[in-house]
């Protein structure tokens, strides 16, 4: 057993005292071997982060470890006095947090922050701290490390910051690196860079990584072994490959089924009904029983035991054999309606032509305009009735601004937005107000998009009142109940406050609010990116069903390719304020032509381990839209850049009726 680095036995961490403490971690056992990557997978609120914090003994003041043991090598971490524990943190154990922005102190230089870690944890380098820092910066792939040493965090991009955070964690030459959702806040291309870096560092130094994530794709990409957490317990452990081939626990299986993708287009996604049960109770049965399709009588009143069926593999479930057969097959939707939508000659509902949104940059006391942030710089789109156009791109490419400019929430600088014959950019006052009923928006964060001080009823009624639809009070009441029913919520939800609902339910309320004014086009601004996979599936199902029932058109803004493949009819890929490639889903996803699209698609982690795909690694970050590179905006990062690319921005080349690509490579 000498190759075991970290051993956790029956760890229990409770939050709060009182009569009903929250049992955030309720008896988990796990072992991490030297040099392996161990992934801890689960939805939010399952106790993943609490596990990491318990190992580091950095629990919040209300949390306490009530039982169990944690051994790092031969040391029992829970028995160490605080001053010795401080040496372990950052010494033998390093930690990376989710948000690189808040992990660095903005008033200290990057070098000083890494040097601090070196001074504390690396006794051998006391004489020459600076050299060691530069060495670390080089190790995490930061170009020009001597110069970066003296820079402040705000001068670095998100990906660079996360590299600095990793460098800090490496300063103590840790044997175990705990990474708590290290790439969730990053874009896909940057995520690919960081994951590759972590893998490479692991090979060089032989440290073990405890990777905490909710993303099956990331797991498949880097993990050696996987543990699935649910409601404070580990429900399944398996080597990565075996896990992806035959997930044993119904929960793991459901997770796989709920991932959207091309092959599931005409099906409803499998959803896990309900939510994670509140953890402030003693469970008398299986914690997953209420949401499990294969639930048996025994599940209700006898907690399942840990079943170790092979070395390093185990599952906590009453049914171990024939589990797959019991799981409900995804329900197929009426094939016809989808086909009709795809075959009928599309009549454009919304037409956007050469849309530009420039934000002026003011400087000096007289607020002179010294430049423009070209957030959107000449975008043309078309959305036919009853279809979905997905706008894809990394953060900062201007996709959200396009959505808001179409809604006239931000005044476009130039260009036309035609909606059903009206030119929206020229409408003013009352005429624009009346038009607003036709276009609605659903936001990313369902909590921030509802006034916490209003009842759900008032939230849904707001649009009806503003638009003067829905009749008098009693009629509106009926309509609210009907809308809530349409999005799958009970009518009693109307008299509650938004905070009483879970994330997925809140997003349903937002959909109901948008539907209240009977819109024809809904702009969905990353409506599922703040939600867990299983909940995301619920919302995607809902949106698809509504499209078929009501003939809605969607402008779907997202960075998630899997969602695009599942839901969209057409795709537009944006880079730095411009559309670089446009076409139907099949055209773009199967045969990307623009080098950026190719790189973007290849960077998306796929939930299939060992899938050998051609990887295109993009170097660097997206340039600032206030100062875009001359010529093709993409050429500084483009692996196939030519000299001509620096000269002028390539024109859109039409490859078919639906397809257009802006790249010089295609001119030949």
């Amino acid at each position, binding site marked *: 057993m000498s190759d075991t680095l970290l051993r956790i036995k029956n760890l229990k961490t409770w939050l709060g005292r009182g009569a009903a403490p929250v049992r955030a971690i309720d008896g988990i056992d796990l072992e991490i071997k030297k040099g392996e990557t161990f992934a801890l997978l689960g939805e939010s609120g399952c106790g993943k982060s609490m596990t990491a914090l318990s190992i580091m003994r950095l629990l919040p003041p*209300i949390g306490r470890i009530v039982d169990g043991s944690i051994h790092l090598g031969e040391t029992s971490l829970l028995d160490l006095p605080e001053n010795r524990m401080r040496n372990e943190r950052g010494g033998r154990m390093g930690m990376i947090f989710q948000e690189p922005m808040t992990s660095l102190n903005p008033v200290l230089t990057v070098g000083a922050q890494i040097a601090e870690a070196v001074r504390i944890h690396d006794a051998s380098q006391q004489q020459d701290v600076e050299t060691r820092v530069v060495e670390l910066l080089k190790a995490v792939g930061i170009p020009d490390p001597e110069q970066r040493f003296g820079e402040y965090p705000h001068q670095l991009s998100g990906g660079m910051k996360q590299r600095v955070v990793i460098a800090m964690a490496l300063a103590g030459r840790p044997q175990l690196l705990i990474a708590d959702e290290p790439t969730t806040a990053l874009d896909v291309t940057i995520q690919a860079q960081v994951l590759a870096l972590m893998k490479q560092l692991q090979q060089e130094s032989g440290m073990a990584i405890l990777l905490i994530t909710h993303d099956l794709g990331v797991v498949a990409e880097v993990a050696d072994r996987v543990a699935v957490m649910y409601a404070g317990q580990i429900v399944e452990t398996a080597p990565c490959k075996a896990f992806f081939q035959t997930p044993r626990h119904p929960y793991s299986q459901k997770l796989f089924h709920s991932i959207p993708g091309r092959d599931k287009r005409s099906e409803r996604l499998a959803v896990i009904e309900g939510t994670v049960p509140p953890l402030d109770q003693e469970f008398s049965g299986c914690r997953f029983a209420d949401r499990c399709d294969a639930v048996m009588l025994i599940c209700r009143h006898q907690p399942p035991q840990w079943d170790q069926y092979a070395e390093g593999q185990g599952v906590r479930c009453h049914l171990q054999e024939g589990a797959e057969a019991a799981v409900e097959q995804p329900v197929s939707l009426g094939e016809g309606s989808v086909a009709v939508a795809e075959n009928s000659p599309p009549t454009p509902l919304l037409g956007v032509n050469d849309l530009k949104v420039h934000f002026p940059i003011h400087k000096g006391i007289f607020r002179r305009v010294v430049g423009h942030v070209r957030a959107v710089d000449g975008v043309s789109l078309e959305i036919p009735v009853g279809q979905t156009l997905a706008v894809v791109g990394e953060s900062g490419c201007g996709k959200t601004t396009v959505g808001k400019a179409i809604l006239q*929430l931000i005044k476009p600088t130039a260009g036309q937005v035609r909606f059903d014959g009206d030119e929206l950019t020229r409408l003013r006052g009352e005429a624009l107000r009346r038009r*607003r009923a036709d276009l609605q928006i659903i*936001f990313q964060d369902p909590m921030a*998009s509802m*006034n916490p001080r209003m009842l759900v009823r008032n939230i849904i009624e*707001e*649009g009806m009142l*503003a638009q003067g639809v829905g009749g008098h009070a009693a009629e509106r009441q009926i309509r609210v109940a009907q809308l809530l029913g349409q999005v799958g919520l009970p009518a009693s939800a109307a008299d509650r406050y938004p905070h009483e609902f879970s994330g997925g339910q809140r997003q349903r309320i*937002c959909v109901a609010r948008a539907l209240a004014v009977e819109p024809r086009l809904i702009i969905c601004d990353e409506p599922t990116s703040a939600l867990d996979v299983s909940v995301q599936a619920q919302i995607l199902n809902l949106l698809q069903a509504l499209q078929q029932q009501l003939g809605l058109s969607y402008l779907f803004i997202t960075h998630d390719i899997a969602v695009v493949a599942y839901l969209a009819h057409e795709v537009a890929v944006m880079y730095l304020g411009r559309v670089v490639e446009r076409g139907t889903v099949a055209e773009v996803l199967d045969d990307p032509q623009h080098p950026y699209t190719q790189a973007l698609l290849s960077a998306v982690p796929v939930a299939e381990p060992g899938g050998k795909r051609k990887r295109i690694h993009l170097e660097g970050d997206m340039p600032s839209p206030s100062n875009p590179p001359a010529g093709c905006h993409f050429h500084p990062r483009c692996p196939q850049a030519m000299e001509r690319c620096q000269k002028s921005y390539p024109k859109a080349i039409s490859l078919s009726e639906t397809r257009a690509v802006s790249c010089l490579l295609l001119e030949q």
Partner: protein
Amino acid sequence: MPELVVLWTDALIFLLIALVLLFGHLAASREHLRAPWRSVARSRMGMGALVILSAYVLIGVMDSVHYKPLLPEAERTAEVTHSNEVLSLLDYLLTPLRERQEKTYSAPLATHLYSKESIEQADGQTVRDYPRLKYGGAHLQDPQQEWASDVVWTAIIGVQEALLAWLLVVGIITAWLARRAGCTFFQQCRQILCSRTDIPWRVIFIVLGALLLVAFVAGNLGIKYHLLGTDKVGEDVLYQTLKSVRTGLVIGTLTTLIMLPAAILMGIMAGYFRGWVDDVIQYIYTTLSSIPGVLLIAAAILMLHVYMNNHADEFNSLVERADLRLLFLCIILGITSWTGLCRLLRGETLKLRELDYVQAAQAFGVGHFTIIMRHILPNVLHIVMISVVLDFSGLVLAEAVLSYVSIGVDPTMNSWGNMINSARLEMAREPIVWWSLAAALIFMFTLVLAANLFSDAVRDAFDPRLRGGR
């Protein structure tokens, strides 16, 4: 019938009370407003402070009901039936304190004056000695022998009365609580004693007990003696300090009432509309806050002074004149102090207007005014609440400072600032007269401390960052 007189500040105080009641009624029906106040009601510190504050408010409100008393039968004529003097309900209750005026300084609980005078004795001889007070301890035959035991006995009687009153009040409240909870009286008593109740009744009762104790002992002693001594013209200092309570409260509350509309309106407008509206409002408040406040106050008060002197006939009584000056001081303090809140609200609104629900409302075509009233105002109300409560104690202290440099309230008006101002000379006297200053300081200190503790509790309850912790 005495004739009711409503002074400007009285009217505003009652308006304020009406507004608070209205807000309370509104808050009771909305969970998001009720929840933080419920957590204030659970804070021990907050409720203890609230009991003290209520005592002050009671005194202040009683002092805000003004009337002109009827003249005695003999002096009445056909036209003039009421006295020219304006009194308040508090004056009426404190008549024994108000009317028993000595000649000059006397120490607390003294039986003799503080300075020697020539006294003509029965046998025609004149001696220089401390003369007996006209009212203080006048019932004593031989002050030297009887004084100590009389003071102790009076105090003990006061304690007994306080105990009785306390038991009565506590009994009534406990019985009411027991009925509401549906348990027996003694069960409820045990609950309170072990402080297992939601609202910290034990703390409330203890503070109430202390308060009643002080009140009854002071009441009993105050009738027989001058509990806190007398000032230069022989007026009872206890009476003066009690009258000063209203001045402090008026300054602390009316100023915020006056500045609130401007601060809320301007702050939200600047943050919501941005552009040139924001520029104009920002210029106004940066300009205003760069003028030294004291200078502005001094100029305004002096201008008012000149106006009053030129139009002396417009004021029926000294009280009305002093009242107008007090109101003016509130207004000018309000004008100089709205900028802080305005700036806070502007920042918060800038943040809120970018939130998705405001954008969603705009996407529905909801009007600007409705968005402000429905989405912005309720979400900045906690900031308003916190800053009002926090400002209160600062304003009470500001009054004292301003009166000290004699640009505060009218010199004829009772205020702690004026008392401290006159103590300047008393402190220079030999032997020194300390009780005026001490009385003003003790009363002011208690009020400000209670207000600060209460505002702490309010801030904790409304602070969204702390809310998750409980």
